[in-house]
């Protein structure tokens, strides 16, 4: 059973521990510093903190003793000559995703960044190399747009446990891309997605997955909370089906979580819409499907139901066992121990929550 939460927040890395069945805040690291992602590598217990110093740039820190001590390592950096577009040099603006490279590649680590570069380390994070072939994907400068942030960002990385050289990434206003050779070659995997904000909604690129999560028990089943709906693939991303709730509210949002034991069970945190990025109806709820997106239930018990403006960011919703947790843009943090059917408030005065991981 997972007993620890790592929260990346606007004002530091917050650790919560479960004691006697209740989550309690236990530790704070990097006080006052924005932590875009807090990540624990389940292979070796290493904790990673992606920092976004306003003045001093993005930094990467790791800890081998659960945060008792941290050391800074060189953050992924774009090589000489890399350009966002002609004449605009690429530099690392944000670290937006971290994922270990699998048990058969114990020293491999992936990091996704803004302005759109994916990096791989093969020495446990001491050094990172830009995946040039994805960075040089045809027409990237023209078809990768960036959305809420100024430039595209790699926010999702899925490493297939059956073949660790097969990796899917999700990139904001660019789409889903797949490699089967550890990053040497890439193909777009967005068939079936609809980009309603484009002249051609069926475009193979410029799609806007907000987050991509594969089902732990069946990695062929992949869920995407997209800018224009919720998508599910049952063929490893080769095709996507829109499973949004056409008559309900499960459509627009950022986060998605998938059950550890059921590829058909997933949770989303609906916002009103693209134009109104607030909790749906100014009331907070979590929607769950148990049948692969054919139907959705809405759960509100324990969640505020008026004057509510929270959005759940893409990395801030997580599930493991019967536990589901989420943090919001206004610093609320809720936990459930019955798969989202009822909720307890952990805190309503945290900093803006960027990420949460259960370990």
């Amino acid at each position, binding site marked *: 059973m997972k007993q620890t939460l790592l929260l990346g927040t606007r004002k530091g890395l917050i650790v919560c521990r479960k004691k006697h069945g209740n989550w309690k805040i236990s530790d704070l690291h990097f006080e006052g510093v924005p932590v875009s992602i807090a990540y624990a590598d389940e292979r070796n217990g290493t904790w990673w903190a992606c920092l976004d*110093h306003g003045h*001093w*740039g993005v*930094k990467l820190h790791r800890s081998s003793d659960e945060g008792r001590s941290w050391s800074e390592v060189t*953050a992924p950096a*774009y090589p000489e000559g890399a350009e966002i577009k002609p004449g605009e*040099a690429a*530099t690392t603006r944000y670290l937006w995703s971290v994922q270990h490279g699998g048990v058969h590649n114990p020293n491999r680590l992936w990091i996704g960044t803004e302005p759109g570069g994916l990096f791989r380390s093969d020495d446990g994070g001491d050094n990172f190399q830009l995946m040039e072939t994805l960075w040089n994907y045809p027409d990237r400068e023209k078809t990768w747009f960036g959305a809420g942030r100024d430039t595209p960002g790699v926010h999702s990385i899925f490493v297939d446990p059956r073949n660790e050289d097969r990796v899917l990434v999700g990139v904001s206003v660019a789409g889903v891309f797949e490699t089967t050779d550890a990053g040497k070659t890439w193909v777009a995997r967005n068939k079936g997605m609809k980009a309603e904000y484009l002249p051609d909604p069926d475009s193979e690129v410029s799609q806007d997955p907000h987050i991509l999560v594969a089902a732990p028990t069946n990695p062929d089943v992949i869920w995407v909370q997209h800018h224009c709906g919720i998508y599910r693939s049952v063929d490893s991303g080769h095709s996507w089906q829109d499973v949004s709730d056409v008559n309900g509210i499960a459509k627009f949002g950022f986060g998605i979580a998938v059950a550890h034991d059921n590829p058909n069970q997933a949770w989303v945190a609906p916002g009103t819409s693209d134009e109104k990025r607030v909790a749906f109806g100014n009331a907070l709820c979590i929607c769950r499907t148990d049948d692969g997106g054919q139907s959705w239930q809405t759960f509100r018990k324990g969640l505020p139901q008026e004057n509510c403006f929270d959005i759940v960011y893409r990395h801030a919703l997580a599930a493991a066992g019967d536990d589901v947790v989420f943090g919001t843009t206004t610093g609320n943090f809720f936990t459930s121990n019955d798969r989202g059917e009822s909720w307890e408030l952990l805190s309503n005065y945290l900093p803006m929550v960027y990420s949460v991981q259960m370990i």
Partner: protein
Amino acid sequence: MPTVKFTYALRRFFPSLKDTEVNTTSLPDLLQSIDAHYPGIRSYVVDERGALRKHVLIFIDGEVINDRDNLSDAVKENSEVHIMQSLSGG
């Protein structure tokens, strides 16, 4: 030799930081020199291109430098170089 002085804000990351004399009159070399004293500090001041980070300021004898990309502003033998943060966010 030029003396480099630092904003207090950098002491959080480099607690031993103090006024440091450097044996160069080139700003890029000056940053390499202080990085040798305080490993890693250069990456807090400039990005991987060597350009000054957006919210960092360098003053030479009280004047803000002009060339934020290549740091070509002249440093004199007896200059005081301040590395500061620009205030942002009110």
